[in-house]
């Protein structure tokens, strides 16, 4: 009986770990996807802008970096799920 309960406990723990891993993966995966979509659009516009006016290079690099907030916060959530 105790062995059965212990096995169930181990099983539930494993399920919990698995679900945590899925959650962490979703957290970083979906946020990375969103960042990629936005940065693709910003990047293509930035290339056109830089071609017209070279002095916009610096600010364009910065504008491309701004959407990274999403994936960074997704990474933070994923790390917190995995390591805590």
């Amino acid at each position, binding site marked *: 009986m105790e062995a059965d309960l212990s096995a169930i406990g181990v099983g539930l723990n494993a399920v919990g770990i698995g679900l945590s891993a899925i959650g962490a993966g979703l957290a970083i995966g979906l946020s990375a996807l969103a960042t990629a979509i936005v940065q693709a659009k910003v990047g293509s516009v930035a290339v056109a802008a830089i071609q017209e006016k070279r002095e916009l290079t610096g600010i364009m690099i*910065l504008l491309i970096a701004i959407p990274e907030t999403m994936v960074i*916060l997704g990474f*933070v959530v994923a*790390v917190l799920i995995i*390591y805590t």
Partner: protein
Amino acid sequence: MIVPMKRIRIVGPLGATGGCIRLLRENGALHVVNSKNDDLLGKSGLNVGSFSSETSETLKRTESLLFDVRTAMALLRKSDPSHIDLLSMEPGEQDWLSDSFHNEYKPIVDEIASTAAAASRLNAEMEEIRGFRLIFEEFQPLVEVVVSLKGVEMSGVFFRESEGTAARKMDEIEKALDDATEGACSVVRGKPQKNLSSCLLVYPFSLGNKVQNEVFERHAKKIQTIHVPQKLEKETFASTLLNMFKREKTVESELEMMQEKLRGYSVRWTSLLGTLEKGLKRAVKELRLQNYLALSEKTFWITGWIPAEESKNLEDAAEMEFGGSVIVFTEKPSPADYANVPVLLNNPPWASPFQRFLAIFPSPVYGSVDPTVFITVFFPLFFGLMLGDVGYALILGFLARLIHVRKPRDPLWSDVMAVVGACAVTTALFGILYGEFFGKMWQGLGFPAAFFHRKEEIITLLAVMLLVGGLHVILGNLIAIRNSLYGRMFRDALARFSDIGFIGAAFWIAWCVYSEKPLEWGGTIMALSLAVKLLSEGPAAFLEVIRLFSNVLSYARLMAIGLASIIFADLADDFFLSSGGVVIGVIGAMIIHAVNFVIGVFDPAIQAIRLHYVEFFNQFYKHGSVEYAPLKAEII
């Protein structure tokens, strides 16, 4: 630091105008502004910025010639990109505004422009002809036959579809034409190309209307008609096509001739055009400057701004030159003037390299705070917090030294060296605190982390970074309070004060929750801050609170990027430890460390400056000022 400025008003006899402008150029410190914006002038009765119609005409003509010269230079550069002219001379003394000058050089730029325009037209015609040739080349023998027959016409039709769909549509049209013309029309199908199928409809002239109705109107949605360019239309479609093909050779040789001509112009005139551009630019600037002066029959008036420490020099120089007949008045700007005062930034040598980070931003408004010193402190701090590895710091230090050796006198590279050097120091410092030397080699050598190990204390790391972020945002708000009080905007200062209360209360509450202590004053301070914010900003306060917290949370990137860096570095170390052969392990570890280093330099740099530009500057930075551009003598 924003250099303190003074408003200057220079008044003197009309005859001394030229001498005064020459003096100002030699002094090189006065930023001249349009005198019509000087409200004191309204009472003086002087005519402000009034050009005579002759001078206006001269300015317009000179600006037009300058524009034409620049256009000609661009056209020549386009036609001969490999030709780089290094011999453009300094302008020297010339009467750039005279009729004779204008009449001498205008024909040259006009010639270049007209040749380029002719080449462009021929190019467009060539493209057009080639387009038709692509569709109709295989029909050429038929076209030649149709041309020789009287009373026969043809029309071109094409389909941008797959071969199967195009064939089906051609069948429908052929059937429709057969029925309409009782078999008098022939459809000659071309060889299908990729998604492009064409055919020729050949029919007697008399049935032209029927063909028009049946094909081009009733089946208009299914087909695309080929129209020859109207300018090339000779007689029939067929004869026009043939003429176009014949013209192709002529167009090709004419185009080659025009391009050869342009290349010749490029070799002959690029140097001259460069010199003309410089001289005309200077002449236009001089002429425009006259429009900034206020003049009467006997007096001139110049308004401008000058760094406060330079004003005495100008006054003394004017006194010495004109013996008191030209008077220089100075006054400090009032807050109402701040938006119009030109801004000059001047920072101590240890901070001036970081001034380049403001280059992509408009300068701060006069009377506000120059954030350069804060960037000098916090940029390397954030960089070190993220990269934090003694090994990588050594590489950065080596790079800084290399730059110093290779480019000792270049101002840009000197600034880069200073920034890289500062980042190397903070990276080393945090590397010791985190206990990292190329990842976990520090621990491998037996040294403990002085503070905590990043990978093992993730919550602590996150808390520290958010605390740093909160302090950074609080600093931004303190600067905003200073600016608001300076500008006598007390409501704004109160709102900023409540922001500080919010952040402080949030950290206090978080600390109490973490250490399981009662909240005590935390909740009260937060409620009070909200009340003050609502009073000062109204309902928008709720949105501002969300913005404030998201600004602080954004500093979690310091933790995220740092953690990614250490995970990657540890991966390199694990590769070395787990590899069978020492050589493979070392090479593999070096490659991974190299990639991590490159990412670890660029990403922290971009994110650190982004935190300044967005989260920090959002609190207080006001831009939109005028750049300081003093009147200076051109160096010849």
